[in-house]
């Protein structure tokens, strides 16, 4: 394995570079997954039937908390990757842990929000609107949940093996995934919540 020391560890071999590129291709497919969900949401947005509308069930406080938590977690994982490039494993581990805690906070608010919706009579089969709302939010929430466990395994592995081209590459790819979830959230925040409450 040829290691190029002029590049950051996560890019240092041909295989690493290709893995990162491959993950970008996967993110392209993820863009499409969420695009189809947004498409269906926009089509069913006003088909509320006998159920509540967005303006009736959306609340700004939990949504704002979720936004700030996820935005902050995207920042801390960025700092984690920066620390990794400086070779500071301890700082990197701290930033990654903070990221996951913020992610858990996000999930906490989202679960609270879902429970509130169900109590208010906005279940998965209430109307076209609630169905697509919960499917879109749920798909994003599942991604965050998956990301939490993925990130946890990354932390454990770096702890066990230290920073090698392999673990650095995995950490970097995980950071791409986490940032992408924040990008998706920006669109959910803007075009589902804020648009619905406007």
């Amino acid at each position, binding site marked *: 394995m040829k290691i190029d020391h002029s590049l950051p560890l996560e890019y240092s071999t041909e295989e690493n570079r290709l893995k990162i590129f491959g993950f970008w291709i996967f993110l392209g497919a993820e863009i499409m997954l969420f695009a189809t969900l947004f498409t269906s949401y926009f089509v069913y947005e006003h088909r509320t039937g006998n159920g509540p509308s967005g303006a009736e069930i959306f609340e700004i406080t939990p949504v704002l908390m979720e936004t700030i938590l996820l935005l902050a977690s995207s920042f801390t994982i960025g700092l984690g990757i920066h620390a990794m490039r400086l070779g500071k494993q301890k700082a990197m581990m701290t930033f990654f842990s903070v990221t996951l805690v913020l992610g858990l906070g996000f999930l906490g608010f989202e679960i609270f929000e879902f429970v509130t919706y169900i109590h208010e009579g906005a279940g998965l089969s209430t109307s076209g609107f609630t169905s697509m709302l919960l499917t879109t939010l749920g798909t994003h929430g599942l991604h965050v949940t998956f990301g939490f466990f993925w990130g946890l395994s990354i932390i454990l592995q770096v702890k066990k093996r230290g920073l090698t081209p392999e673990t650095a590459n995995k950490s970097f790819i995980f950071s791409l995934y986490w940032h992408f979830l924040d*990008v998706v959230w920006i669109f959910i925040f803007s075009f589902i919540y804020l648009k619905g409450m406007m």
Partner: protein
Amino acid sequence: MKELFPIKQVMGFAFSLILTAVALLVYFLDMSFTAGITILLVTAFIQAGLQLVVFMHAGETEDKGAIYSNVYFGILVALVTIFGTLLIFVWDM
């Protein structure tokens, strides 16, 4: 300690928070639907671009061209799918 907080990323985070605050104006101020959606489109896409460039290091390696082409193509297909569907099913054209 200071080296752990690169100015580029701190600025990126601050700018994201500002864009979020601007987007919130559509909730707190009374404005027309067109004005509101315009603000949201602008703030959302700038913020997404910020994540891509500042935090995801999209333009750092020799794969830059391929990475950006892939993202642009993804966004293009996403927009065509969303607006094409809206055109047929919602705007009745």
